């Protein structure tokens, strides 16, 4: 790309996490409901049915705007976007064009080690369409999804590589999940993306001719499609060809983008104000109240974990990647008082065990309190590390109290000096050669003897104490 620079802009559609649809009280779309069972005259587009705004959807869209620093106009309104397609039986989608809920804003991303600010043009509120299944000779329509609240976030063309586009989507997704705005599950289509791309010669200002890739819904697909599309545009121009502004479709199996010339008139949407909905009038007090409901965002939480708990940057990054994990860590750390030890357990044993079982932290049986108590037992040297890991596994699988499990399993660490002296003598007597080696200056021999003591104690000896006792005995 040395002679060329790319400009990438995204239009991200996000399914809001609400219980009801955007303009009626039908349950909002969830996978797995039998088709056409969550419908009413409004979302079926029956003549005479009137839409009523979902307050919670409006609130969640405004919250998103507040998170990214948008300006929230006090007056916002809805428009009709007209098109003919059976997924939208009214023949128009209710959306916002002239006066969206959120204007401007930005999201910071980190890509290739540098920080970059991606500007957002606006966020508007709209409704989802029905789901169409294309068959050989007909199409089937399920209206359960029809009218589900969507917000569309439109960025400026500020990204210049596929990596940056993915970094943006990752950062956005993280924020939305954190704030409970959306489950943002890509596989379930909660986040879908139109990707606009153009290239222009380095050193020029005027944006090149753009292509639009519609309805992308995996990060990997977006990355591959963008990589392909940038190269296609560059090859075309370098071969002396010219580009046309067009909508293209990503064929994932073939790994190419294809022109969609079929809808000659598709882009004339004839927007006009939606006469069936009164405007949304917000006031400063309401916006201020909503602002107070914003959760701490991942970047701020990372900084606080480093500052307040003295954690390394790496730990803070891992722990805050998911809000539930961050909350779990905090609950345990406040109880245990050893933040770094808690961090090690959460990042190590807990995430490993969850990964093995394919579970989320919400399903884990070990409570933050139990983990804190377990860590306290290690810190007090009541049990040693191998025993602690054994207890952890039991807590993870069955739950319970660490103290009770330690007693039940007889895992109390042997720190009793009489018993330790006995184990040390037995170990030395059993391996005279090793004893000689040590006395001859071979320091590593000590570890062998410590190992023997651990074995004799069935893993319950305090290893540090064993080493001390052995060293004293060996030097006399």
């Amino acid at each position, binding site marked *: 790309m040395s002679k060329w620079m790319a400009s990438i802009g995204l239009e991200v559609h996000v399914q809001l996490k609400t219980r009801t649809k955007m303009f009626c*009280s039908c349950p909002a779309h969830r996978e797995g409901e039998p088709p056409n069972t*969550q419908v009413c*005259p409004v979302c079926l587009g029956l003549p005479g049915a009137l839409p009523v705004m979902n307050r919670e959807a409006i609130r969640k869209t405004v919250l998103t705007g507040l998170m990214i620093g948008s300006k929230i106009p006090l007056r916002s309104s809805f428009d009709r976007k007209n098109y003919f397609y059976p997924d939208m039986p009214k023949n128009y989608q209710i959306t916002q064009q002239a006066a969206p809920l959120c204007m401007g804003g930005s999201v910071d991303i980190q890509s290739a080690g540098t920080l970059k600010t991606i500007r957002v043009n606006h966020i508007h509120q709209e409704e989802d369409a029905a789901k169409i299944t294309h068959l050989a000779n007909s*199409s089937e329509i*399920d209206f359960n999804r029809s009218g589900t609240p969507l917000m569309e976030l439109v960025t400026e063309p500020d990204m210049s590589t596929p990596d940056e586009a993915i970094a943006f989507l990752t950062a956005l997704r993280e924020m939305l999940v954190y704030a409970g705005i959306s489950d943002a599950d890509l596989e379930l289509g909660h986040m879908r993306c139109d990707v606009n791309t153009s290239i222009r010669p380095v050193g020029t200002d005027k944006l090149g001719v753009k292509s639009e890739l519609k309805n992308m819904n995996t990060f990997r697909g977006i990355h591959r499609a963008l990589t392909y599309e940038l190269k296609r545009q560059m090859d075309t121009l370098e071969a002396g060809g010219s580009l046309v502004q067009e909508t293209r479709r990503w064929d994932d199996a073939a790994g190419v983008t294809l022109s969609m010339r079929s809808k000659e008139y598709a882009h004339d949407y004839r927007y006009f104000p939606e006469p069936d909905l009164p405007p949304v009038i917000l006031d400063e007090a309401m916006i201020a109240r909503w602002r107070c409901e914003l959760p701490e965002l991942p970047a701020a939480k990372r900084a606080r974990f480093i500052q307040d708990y003295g954690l390394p940057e790496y730990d803070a990054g891992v722990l805050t990647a998911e809000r539930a994990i961050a909350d779990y860590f905090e609950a345990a750390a406040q109880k245990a008082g050893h933040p770094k030890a808690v961090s090690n357990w959460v990042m190590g044993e807990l995430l490993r065990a969850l990964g093995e079982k394919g579970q989320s932290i919400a399903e884990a049986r070990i409570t933050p309190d139990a983990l804190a108590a377990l860590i306290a037992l290690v810190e007090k040297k009541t049990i040693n590390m191998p025993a602690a890991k054994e207890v952890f596994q039991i807590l993870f699988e069955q739950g319970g109290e660490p103290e009770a499990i330690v007693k039940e399993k007889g895992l109390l660490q042997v720190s009793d000096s009489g018993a330790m002296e006995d184990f040390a003598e037995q170990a030395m007597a059993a391996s005279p050669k090793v004893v000689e080696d040590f006395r001859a200056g071979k320091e590593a021999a000590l570890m062998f003897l410590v190992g023997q003591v651990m074995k004799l104690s069935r893993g319950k000896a305090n290893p540090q104490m064993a080493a001390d006792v052995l060293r004293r005995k060996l030097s006399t």
Partner: protein
Amino acid sequence: MTMNFSERADRMDVRYVARLARIRLTDAEADELQGQLDDILAFVGELKRLDVQEAPPTDDSSGNRNIWHEDVPRPGLPHEAAMALAPTARHGQFVVPKIME
């Protein structure tokens, strides 16, 4: 992205609009309607001579504000009632002629 509604209203091709609306017109009908549509747009165009900078928005004249529902689900139509509206139904879904992407 954002465009004024009035910007495009100077002239409207009836045949183009009919095509968007999937309405089939004879040439005679199209010519007659084109004349009427031109008159209507010219009449509405008079508004452009006014300075509306200070006029409040009139996209809503009901005086209503923030009419919204709380986020509590309520049952809609029973499945059978919804499907009774379908010209053709299969697998609990509405069936339409095949749509090409």
